């Protein structure tokens, strides 16, 4: 019985590598450290924000700018940030999906590549340009439109009062146009990746092109669309320049979007006030930055959660 183990020969030399492969190890080390660098950077940023914000967190409310405490200072800004970003996302999401679909599935090939190129170009336009365009062109141009919204949709809580060219609505729209190219670019890539097999499966069942898109393209691209939206949302949440130029902020809360009565956004508020701040005011601004930091984290985690919810059905297997 013991012969079988005793007669086993040593492994042939050509089948052993004498340990692990050198290249594999290097690559593994590189990718692991890259991952660690990101985590460390994230941690350091959070730690820095917390450390700098701490004095404001523990300060006497009367000392904080505005005189009513930190929460009173940051809450309207948080609301303003979320409002502007939501308007931007609501404008850009359907538009970017539409444009991307046109490029990937409807346009003739020549037109499609020209359009795709144009979209990529637009993505590189700096935000200050969008801001200037918003304040000089879109804002004044939106006055009659906003007036019309008040007239016809005034029964909604979003429209009423005297329209301003520097309203939350105009700001959100400019942000939406700003994040449109990047979202379109992502969506286009995702739609182009749809496996031909699934598209043909759908068409062979007698689907129209739109039905095929609903059946094969959207389900396949869902997580990509969400990632693109998060990319855009991230940019909209953190956008400083365009908002600082256009929005004329106040510290009231209102759901009305077409007046100049909305609070500003965290990012623009920091940019506008940081140069003249000192002492506790700096800490206050950093504290608002900390809130923005957590907001983007939460938004991203929520998006990941949405994507992973039905990962069993993602087709990755």
């Amino acid at each position, binding site marked *: 019985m013991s012969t079988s183990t005793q007669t086993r020969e040593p492994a042939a030399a050509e089948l052993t590598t004498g340990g692990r492969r050198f290249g594999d190890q290097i690559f593994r080390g590189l990718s692991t450290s890259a991952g660690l660098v990101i985590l460390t950077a994230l941690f350091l940023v959070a730690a820095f924000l917390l450390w700098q914000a701490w004095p404001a967190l523990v300060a006497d409310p009367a000392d904080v700018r505005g005189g009513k405490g930190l929460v009173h200072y940051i809450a309207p800004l948080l609301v303003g940030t979320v409002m502007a970003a939501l308007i931007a996302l609501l404008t850009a999401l359907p538009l970017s999906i539409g444009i991307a679909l046109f490029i990937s599935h409807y346009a003739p*090939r020549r037109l499609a590549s020209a359009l795709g190129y144009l979209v990529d170009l637009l993505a590189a336009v700096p935000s200050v340009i969008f801001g200037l365009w918003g304040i000089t062109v879109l804002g004044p141009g939106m006055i009659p439109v906003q007036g019309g919204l008040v007239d016809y949709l005034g029964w909604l809580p979003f429209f009423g009062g005297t329209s301003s060219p520097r309203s939350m609505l105009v700001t959100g729209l400019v942000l939406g146009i700003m994040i449109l190219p990047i979202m379109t670019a992502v969506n286009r890539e995702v739609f182009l990746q749809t*496996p031909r*097999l*699934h*598209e*043909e*499966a*759908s*068409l*062979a*069942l*007698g*689907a*129209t092109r739109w*039905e095929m898109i609903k*059946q*094969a393209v959207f*389900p*396949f691209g*869902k997580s990509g669309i969400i990632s693109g939206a998060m990319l855009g949302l991230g940019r909209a949440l953190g956008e400083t320049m365009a908002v600082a130029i256009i929005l004329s902020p106040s510290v009231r809360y209102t759901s009305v979007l077409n007046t100049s009565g909305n609070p500003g956004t965290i990012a623009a508020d920091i940019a506008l006030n940081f140069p003249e701040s000192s002492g506790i005011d700096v800490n206050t601004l950093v504290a608002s930055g900390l809130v923005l930091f957590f907001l983007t984290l939460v938004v991203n985690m929520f998006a990941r959660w949405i994507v992973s919810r*039905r990962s*069993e*059905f*993602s*087709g990755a*297997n």
Partner: protein
Amino acid sequence: MSKQIDVKDLNIYYGDFLAVQDVSTTIAPRSITALIGPSGCGKSTFLRALNRMHEVIPGAKVKGSVELDGQDMYGRGVDPVLVRRKVGMVFQKPNPFPTMSIKENVLAGVKLNNKRIKKSEAEELVESSLKGANLWNEVKDRLDKPGSGLSGGQQQRLCIARTIAVKPEVVLMDEPCSALDPISTLAVEDLMAELKNDYTIVIVTHNMQQAARVSDKTGFFNIEGTGKPGKLVEYDETSKIFNNPSEKATEDYISGRFG
């Protein structure tokens, strides 16, 4: 439920390249027709022209006519979408929708065109289609699990169930068993023999035994050389093609002296 296909002077092009030349033939209802021939001779191209699926490929076009019980599917004003509802297709690689459950996959075609069906009807249809595809017993306890979690052979039968759920007149199959093991292949072949009672079936295969086993008629496609168009060289009763073909090229091909 089952229709005759009349192909007249069909030429199929990819851009300027003539891929299939001058095919004229008649495919009888309630029969299985096998298409055989060397690689690149235009079998898939021809098959796709039978339900206008070639139009998905940019630049592909046909000349000639394909009639379904006398109705030209390339006639003026004919909607390819409606053609494909009558002429279903099963592909070489199983392609269930990965984002859908087994049940949703079966109903995918039925729910198109904004059609609503009652829950009870849907359930009956799922059961009858899966039974029709010999898959019911294997999946009846996991209808809500993703279709992509099945084995390759099961996925292919799911695709067949999905195709027959829309109750087409004709079912086209492009090498439906080439990715399957012998047992799944037999299951699909048995299924074809049953489906023949209700549908006109056209199948492309590289497997001679399969063609001989399942088909009533066989068509042999061939090309003279690369860049030349493919032609339907011989089309006859399967027994005749395999035992006593009239063309030399056919005989060479089936006896393995070619391609």
